[in-house]
C-alpha cells in the first residue's frame, strides 16, 4: 500500500503543479489584453531584457557561426563539398542555432533575474503590499515582462542571425580561403524568407517561455533566501528545457510538408 501512496503523492503534486502553472498562464494572458497597460514599465523591461542582453547574445552568436563554418568545412571536405559552407551556415543559424542559442543565453540571464526579483518581492510581502494598494500584481509585474520578452526576443534573434552569419563569414574568409563576395552571394541566394521567419517565430515563443518561467517561479517561491535561490534555479532549468522541447515541436509544425 505504501508504494501506491507514494506514487499517488507524486502524481498529485505533479498535477497540482500543472494546474497552478496553467491558471497562472491563463491569468497572465488575460491581463495582457485588459487595460490598464503599464507602458512605461514595459519599455523599462524591454531595455533590461532586450537591450542589455545584446552583448551576451552577440558574442555567443559570433562564435557559434564561426565554429559552425569550421566544422562544416572539416566535415564536407571529406566529400569535396566544402563549397556549401555558406549555405549550411546561414540555414543552421537562422533556423536553429540563432533562436536556440539566444533563447538559452537569455534564459540564463533574464529568467534568473526575473525569478530572483519577483521571488524576493514575494518573501518580503511586497507582492501582498501591491494587492493592498489596489494594484493587480500580475498586471504590474508579470504582464510588462511577458510583453517585453515576446517583443525583444525576435529583435535579438534577428541581430544574432546577422552576427552569426558574420561569424561564419569571418572564419571562412580569414582561415578557410573563401572569397568574401562569393560567400555573401551564396548566402543571399540560398536563404529564404521562411528560414528567417521560422526562427523569429521561435524567438517570440522562447521569449514568452523565459518570462513566464521567471515570473511563475518567482511568484511561487516560499521561505527566505533559500526559497528565492531555488526559484531562480528552477526558472532557468525549466525555461531551458521548455525552450529545447518547444523548439522541436515548432520545427516539426512549421516545416511540416
Amino acid at each position, binding site marked *: 500500500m505504501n508504494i501506491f501512496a507514494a506514487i499517488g503523492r507524486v502524481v498529485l503534486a505533479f498535477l497540482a503543479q500543472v494546474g497552478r502553472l496553467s491558471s497562472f498562464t491563463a491569468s497572465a494572458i488575460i491581463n495582457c489584453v485588459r487595460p490598464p497597460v503599464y507602458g512605461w514599465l514595459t519599455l523599462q523591461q524591454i531595455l533590461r531584457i532586450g537591450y542589455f542582453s545584446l552583448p551576451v547574445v552577440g558574442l555567443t552568436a559570433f562564435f557559434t557561426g564561426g565554429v559552425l563554418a569550421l566544422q562544416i568545412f572539416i566535415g564536407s571536405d571529406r566529400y569535396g563539398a566544402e563549397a556549401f559552407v555558406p549555405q549550411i551556415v546561414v540555414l543552421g543559424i537562422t533556423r536553429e542555432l540563432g533562436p536556440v542559442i539566444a533563447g538559452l543565453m537569455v534564459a540564463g540571464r533574464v529568467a534568473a533575474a526575473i525569478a530572483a526579483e519577483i521571488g524576493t*518581492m514575494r518573501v*518580503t*510581502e*511586497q507582492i*501582498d*503590499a501591491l*494587492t*493592498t*494598494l*489596489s*494594484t*493587480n500584481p500580475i498586471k*504590474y509585474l508579470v504582464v510588462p515582462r511577458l510583453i517585453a520578452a515576446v517583443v525583444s526576443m525576435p529583435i535579438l534573434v534577428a541581430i544574432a542571425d546577422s552576427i552569426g552569419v558574420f561569424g561564419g563569414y569571418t572564419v571562412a574568409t580569414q582561415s578557410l580561403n573563401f572569397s568574401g563576395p562569393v560567400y555573401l552571394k551564396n548566402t543571399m541566394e540560398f536563404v529564404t524568407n521562411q528560414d528567417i521567419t521560422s526562427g523569429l517565430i521561435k524567438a517570440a515563443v522562447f521569449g514568452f517561455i523565459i518570462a513566464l518561467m521567471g515570473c511563475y517561479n518567482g511568484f511561487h517561491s516560499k521561505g527566505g533566501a533559500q526559497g528565492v535561490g531555488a526559484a531562480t534555479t528552477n526558472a532557468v532549468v525549466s525555461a531551458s528545457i521548455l525552450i529545447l522541447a518547444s523548439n522541436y515541436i515548432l520545427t516539426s509544425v512549421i516545416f511540416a510538408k
Partner: protein
Amino acid sequence: MTNGTPKVELRGVKKRFGNKVVLDGVDLKIDAGQSLVVIGGSGTGKSVMIKCVLGILRPDAGQIFVDGEEVTKLRGRARDAYLKKFGMLFQGAALFDSLRVWENVAFGLIQGRGMDRKQAKDIAIEKLAKVGLSADVAMLSPSELSGGMQKRVGLARAIASDPHIIFFDEPTTGLDPIMADVINDLIVSTVERMGVTTLSITHDMASARKIADKIAMLYKGKIIWDGPTEHIDSSGNAFVDQFIHGRADGPIKMEVRA
C-alpha cells in the same frame, strides 16, 4: 459602541494549508472607530487571518463582512474597489525597493486612483510629515533607511489614500523598545486624528496595551478570549494569563518539535 453593523466581522472563518489547520472557525467583530488588537503566539495564524480579510488568501469556509457586505466572493474590479477601504502596515514594512520613498507612499494614489504624479508627490510629502519624516527623506530609496524609519514610511503609505480601516501586522517587531514606543504613539495619534477602525496583530504586550481598545486572543485557530483592554489582567483565562505574563509553564505548551 455598537451602532448597527460592525465595521468588520468574521464568522466561522476556516483556513488550512494541506493537513495543517491554521484557522479553525474564527469569530470576530470590530466596531467602527474601534482599535482591536489580536494577540497570540508565533504561528497561530494571526497573519493568515488578516490576509483572509484582505482577500490575499481565500478562506476555506466562513464569511467575512465589511460594512455589512460579504466580501469573500469579490473578484476583479469589485475587489479593487473594496481594497481601497484598507491600508496595511506590513511586518517588514514591505516597501518597494525599486522605488523612492515618496513613490512608495504615493503608490496607491498613482496606480490605484490614477492621480497625477505631481499632486501625489505633494500628498506623499504631507503624509511623511505626519509620521515625522522630513521632505529630504522622500527622495531616498528604502534601503537607505533604518528599520524604524522604514516602518514609518510603511505607515505613511498605509494612510496615504485615507483608508477607513488600517491593519497593522506586528508593528513593533524588530524595533528597539524606544523606537517601538515611538511607532505605538504614532499609531495612536494617527488613529485618533483620522478616526479609523484598526485591527492589529502582535505578540508585544506593551504595544497591545498602548494601542488597543479591545483585545482578542487567538489560540489554535480560534478566538479564545476577547474583552476591553482594561480587563486583560483579570480575564480569568489561564491561557491569556500565561501569554500576557510570558510564562513558559501553563496550559499553552510550546511545540518545540516542528
